[in-house]
């Protein structure tokens, strides 16, 4: 029974990672940039949601939508100002910029409102415990799992079935050839950032609702974990992010359950390294050797 309880714990933690990882993996998949600022957009989303709820007195869903919209715009602004000038620069220069943007958002937030934390109102969504054979499942965990799954499917449909999705994949593979098809590369990349950041914003609000506590550095660790989840699943692959997130949550829960809670983060990274050594492209990545 306890094991089942721990599995449930792991899945509910994992779906949060998955939620953040979706946007991460989507941006990486298209732009091939490790957007370290993703976790910080997530944080901004959580705060926008918080202020919408407390200051504007909105309920959960309007706040979620406002946060998603605001983060989408924010993501596009970041891309236009910081990343766009570096499109043709080396990957590592872009990575450093992403680190810079991440620091900037964190410290900008601290500068604007201080470093103190805020607590989400606890009554936003009904929270009940569902007991099944002694295993208690929180209704909110189910909701988060459901939301992640739905978003994953929507994302998968956007990328693989819609016109903008085709444009995204074309740009991701070969931006110059995409231009020759009449695709506006700038707009397509902006759309990618908009969607990815909106997802981060949604994850922020949901995180706030679930874990209550938000603060300017809240994005750092979940951001890193989500990135690990994305890599585990095969970065750039949308269902991979989902599976990677859940897997990471399960690993962490089981390691803690075994009494090694202090080794939890290390275990996540050990698994990451092992998986990468044996499956260098992650679980779902196609093991393509470079064609010579």
């Amino acid at each position, binding site marked *: 029974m306890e094991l089942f309880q721990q599995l449930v*714990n792991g899945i*509910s*933690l994992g779906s949060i990672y998955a939620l953040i990882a979706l946007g991460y993996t989507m941006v990486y998949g298209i732009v091939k940039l490790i957007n370290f600022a993703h976790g910080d957009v997530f944080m901004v989303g959580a705060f926008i949601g918080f202020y919408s709820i407390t200051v504007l007195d909105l309920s959960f869903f309007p706040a979620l939508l406002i946060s998603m919209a605001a983060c989408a715009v924010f993501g596009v602004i970041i891309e236009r100002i910081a990343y766009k000038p570096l499109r043709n620069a080396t990957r590592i220069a872009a990575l450093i910029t992403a680190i810079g943007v991440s620091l900037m958002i964190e410290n900008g937030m601290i500068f604007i409102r201080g470093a103190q*934390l805020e607590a989400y109102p606890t009554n936003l969504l009904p929270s009940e415990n569902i007991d099944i054979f002694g295993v208690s499942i929180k209704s909110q965990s189910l909701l988060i799992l459901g939301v992640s799954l739905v978003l994953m499917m929507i994302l998968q449909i956007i990328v693989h079935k819609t016109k903008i999705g085709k444009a995204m994949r074309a740009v991701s593979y070969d931006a110059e050839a995409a231009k020759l098809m009449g695709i506006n590369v700038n707009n397509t990349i902006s759309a990618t950032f908009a969607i990815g950041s909106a997802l981060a914003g949604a994850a922020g609000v949901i995180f706030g609702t679930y*874990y*209550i506590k938000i603060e300017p550095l809240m994005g750092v660790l979940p951001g890193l974990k989500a990135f690990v989840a994305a890599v585990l699943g095969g970065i750039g692959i949308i269902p991979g992010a989902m599976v990677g997130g859940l897997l990471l949550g399960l690993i962490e829960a089981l390691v803690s359950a075994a009494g090694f809670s*202090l080794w939890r983060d290390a275990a996540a990274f050990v698994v990451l390294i092992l998986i990468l050594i044996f499956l260098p492209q992650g679980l779902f990545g196609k093991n393509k050797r470079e064609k010579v």
Partner: protein
Amino acid sequence: GCSDSEKSGSDGDTIKIGANLELTGGGASYGQSVVEGMELAIGELNKEGIDGKKFKLVKYDNKSEAAEATGGATKLTSQDKVSVMVGAATSTNTLAQVQIANDKKIPLITPTGTNSDITSKDGKVNDFVFRTCFIDPFQGTVAANFAKDTLKAKTAAIYIDSSSDYSKGLAAAFKEAFTEGGGTIVKEESFVQKDTDFQATLTNIKSAKPDFVFVPAFYEEVGLILKQARESGIDVPFMGGDGWDSPKLIEIAGADALENTFITNHYSAEDPDEKIQGFVSAFKAKYKDKSPDAFAALGYDTAYFIADAIKRAGGDATPEKIKDALESTDGLALVSGKMKLDENHNPIKSASILKYVNGEQKFETKVNP
């Protein structure tokens, strides 16, 4: 060159106080609270001044990193030549400055670093290092006795923030006192700061079926632990130390989760004591109705602690004279209680035990050292 400390401190009309605190990074909220308390106090003190001199606060951010704390302390002592240093808000970053304070002979006062090693280690007192708060063992012992005697707990679980010396110190003292009194520790678990999901470990604690859970940690995580613990059906009493004390704890955990929980503390913002209420309202007036936590109160007290010593030593006092004056502090009335130092530079203060009722702290009992 180390002999320049003679010239340190007062220059012209000002007395420089250095603050080397966690303004950014992981401990930022503690450092910022301390600064707010100190700035409030200095504002008040400067209305009168001491021997015609006013205090000037020189702030450095140690980014919550020990290395930066060392750098800041070096700068305060050799560049700014302050009379007294305040810092840091956490035990670890304070430890990083101890050697410099001793080497440069500039008093260092930590408002909130409760680790006992700060002021004395292996029986050797750090001459120039002081603190405004009580030390870890005291709180832990108080909590253990309370659990045993008042709550009649026979078994207890301890849930430690292993990234904090504070938490470990309290836990060790608790464990010793609790087992000495015949209780058993049925589970010891730990987490690290900034964790947000405690469910897996709480499931473990739940199955150990303790009568009582001791969580000596800071409110950020404690709030989440309490909430998640109650949600997963652990309804025994929880208790912690002054690290719990923040209005945010109530916001995070919610009033329901806080039922049946207790803390030991330096002070309580709800305390009707005149001095305390005076401080609380002055603080709220200055900082947009924000309620001061213990860090702010101790920051505030630290400034008065220093001012008192300088008053006694004279406005032109050298850092060494200030140190002597600090050592001889006796009966100074502060927000966090009356202050007297023992031979290890640790204040002898009483602790209060508070109980949360409907999300508010209610005075339970007072324990003297």
